[in-house]
């Protein structure tokens, strides 16, 4: 049996797995990424909202803390990534923009709900601005005239996740990180310890992309550490409380951008958002469906997204449909990610990011790096203070008595 030995192996080549591998490679650690189709899952579907403030809900204060901490890390993360990938200005290369999110309300009921949310946000001392309907339309003239009011979260940002994963793949290539295009069939174990991964047979199976001839890829990769970043599929490899939550999302295209910032709102009680890109792309998202590993694009999903988006911005129906995909978010019971030591030596988790994978990527890489260096008795000490508290919120230990 062919066996490869490395220090770290990252299972999963979505935005989280690729970013973890990139950060490890930057630290000079030999790392390998395994994924049958990198950058094609939830990261390919995601809108890339970096909007911890406008995403706030009454029961999810911990998620706000994680999001805010990760958003602060995004500018330096983007700058380092753009440099390593050989790209120019990071903001342009990744379409990283920090122009804020505008949450709008139409009916009197929606307005009352928005007022209540604004009061809650003020209590949390979040920087939000309450706007009248006309103020909203001065900021975003394409909004429907019936908009009654809005809430601007000026610090919220967004990024193009497809550009981020492309940049990560480029950076990994330049750093010489091997990318094994194979599905991981299981974890290798030696007693209590996880010692690597076993690769699946079959078509689309093995083959090192970077080095070595395609036909004789390794069947096993032995590693000192395995980082599980397999998103919605993480529960297939390990008994984890991670489930797929389907999201259908549509990309439209116009010669000129229709909006200057992210716009979101409730329509018939369902949330919808519109994310503008610099190149005229407009992302409409997203459904939330509990349908297992189903990734079919449906007529109902398409219809509901367009119907709701059109209520907010009537002009959307004039745009070209560029793309409609369904992705699978890795959902957890409390909507918080699972990051850190898995409780089994040799295994670190970086999964369960649900709707926040892109936003939480920089923070995730920090937490995983801390966990790996702590496990190796390295220079980094176990974090105290804020990062330590954030690590505690994401710790897989919180589910261990039940799972």
């Amino acid at each position, binding site marked *: 049996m062919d066996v490869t030995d490395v220090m770290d192996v990252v299972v999963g080549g979505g935005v989280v797995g690729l970013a973890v591998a990139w950060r490890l490679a930057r630290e000079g650690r030999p790392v390998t990424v395994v994924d049958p189709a990198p950058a094609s899952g939830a990261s390919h579907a995601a809108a890339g909202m970096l909007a911890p403030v406008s995403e706030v*809900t009454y*029961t999810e204060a911990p998620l706000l803390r994680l999001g805010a901490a990760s958003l602060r890390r995004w500018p330096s993360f983007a700058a380092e990534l753009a440099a390593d990938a050989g790209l120019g200005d990071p903001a342009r290369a990744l379409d990283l923009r920090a122009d804020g999110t505008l949450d709008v309300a139409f009916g009197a009921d929606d307005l009352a709900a928005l007022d209540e949310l604004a009061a809650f946000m003020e209590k949390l001392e979040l920087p939000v601005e309450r706007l009248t309907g006309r103020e909203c339309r001065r900021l975003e003239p394409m909004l429907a005239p019936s908009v009654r009011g809005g809430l601007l979260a000026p610090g919220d940002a967004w990024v193009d996740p497809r550009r981020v994963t492309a940049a990560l793949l480029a950076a990994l290539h330049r750093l010489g990180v091997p990318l094994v295009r194979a599905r991981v069939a299981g974890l290798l174990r030696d007693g209590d310890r996880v010692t690597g991964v076993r690769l699946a047979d079959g078509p689309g199976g093995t083959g090192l992309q970077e080095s070595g001839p395609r036909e004789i890829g390794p069947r096993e990769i032995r590693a000192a550490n395995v980082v599980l970043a397999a998103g919605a599929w993480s529960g297939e490899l390990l008994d984890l409380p991670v489930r797929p939550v389907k999201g259908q999302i549509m990309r439209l295209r116009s010669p000129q951008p229709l909006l200057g910032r992210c716009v979101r709102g409730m329509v018939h009680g369902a949330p919808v958002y519109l994310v503008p890109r610099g190149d005229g792309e407009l992302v409409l998202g997203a459904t939330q469906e*509990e*349908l*297992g590993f189903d990734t079919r694009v449906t007529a109902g999903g398409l219809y509901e997204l367009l119907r709701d988006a059109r209520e907010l911005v009537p002009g959307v129906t004039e745009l070209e449909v560029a793309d409609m995909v369904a992705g699978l978010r890795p959902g957890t019971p409390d909507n918080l990610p699972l990051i850190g030591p898995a409780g089994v030596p040799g295994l670190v988790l970086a999964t369960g990011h649900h709707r926040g994978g892109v936003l939480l990527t920089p923070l995730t890489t920090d937490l995983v790096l801390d966990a790996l260096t702590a496990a190796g008795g390295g220079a980094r000490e176990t974090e105290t203070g804020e990062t330590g508290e954030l690590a505690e919120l994401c710790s897989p230990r919180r589910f261990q008595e039940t799972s």
Partner: protein
Amino acid sequence: MDELTIAGESFSSRLIMGTGGAPSLDVLDQALEASGTELTTVAMRRLDPAARGSVLDVLRKRDIKVLPNTAGCFTAGEALLTARLAREALGTNWVKLEVISDERTLLPDPIETFDAAERLVAEGFVVLPYIGDDPALARRLEQAGCAAVMPLGAPIGSGLGIRNPHNIELIVEAASVPVILDAGIGTASDAALAMELGCDAVLLATAVTRAQRPDTMAAAMRAAVEAGRLARLAGRIPRRRYAEASSPMTP
């Protein structure tokens, strides 16, 4: 509290929960626990009953009976299809029949609902139809063989309470199947009122799942349903125009 019996099956809780609108499965789980519910309705559209870790797992873990519903259906045909899929997937012949007439009000369509109810009863389903607060329709559905009737207090998710208590009383008076107040509950006093009017149970979701503290509101609803039921059984005093001294003449 005295037991609630629907189609020969007994429940010691008279609070039936819905799952819609919960921000996370953990929040839902805590709310269900606090509510003490033994019967919870789940929308079957956009749910794969075979998927691991779904809302159904949360209910199974708590040993709560699942009442599949046909939310999102606009025609009797769709409702029938959804009910049959639910029966096959969940192994239950119970169904909360919900056929809505339009998206803005989500009010039930009486014609489609009756049509579907008749056909589902014929296929051996235990049918619990969601209807407007219409005493005549409630009676007709009971005659058609429904196991309960579920009149609304106000539109779904509106939290407007019971807009026409008189009609709810008329439905209760005439019914010999359980009457379950469904939709419109905003806060605990609405649930208590439903029970005081003589309803056999209350079904609610949004009032709990979208509350700022869902588990606390669930506990409030549980207490309100119990209080309202006890008040109904106790028999309230008649309303009087003027005061009546309570102390001097009696022991």
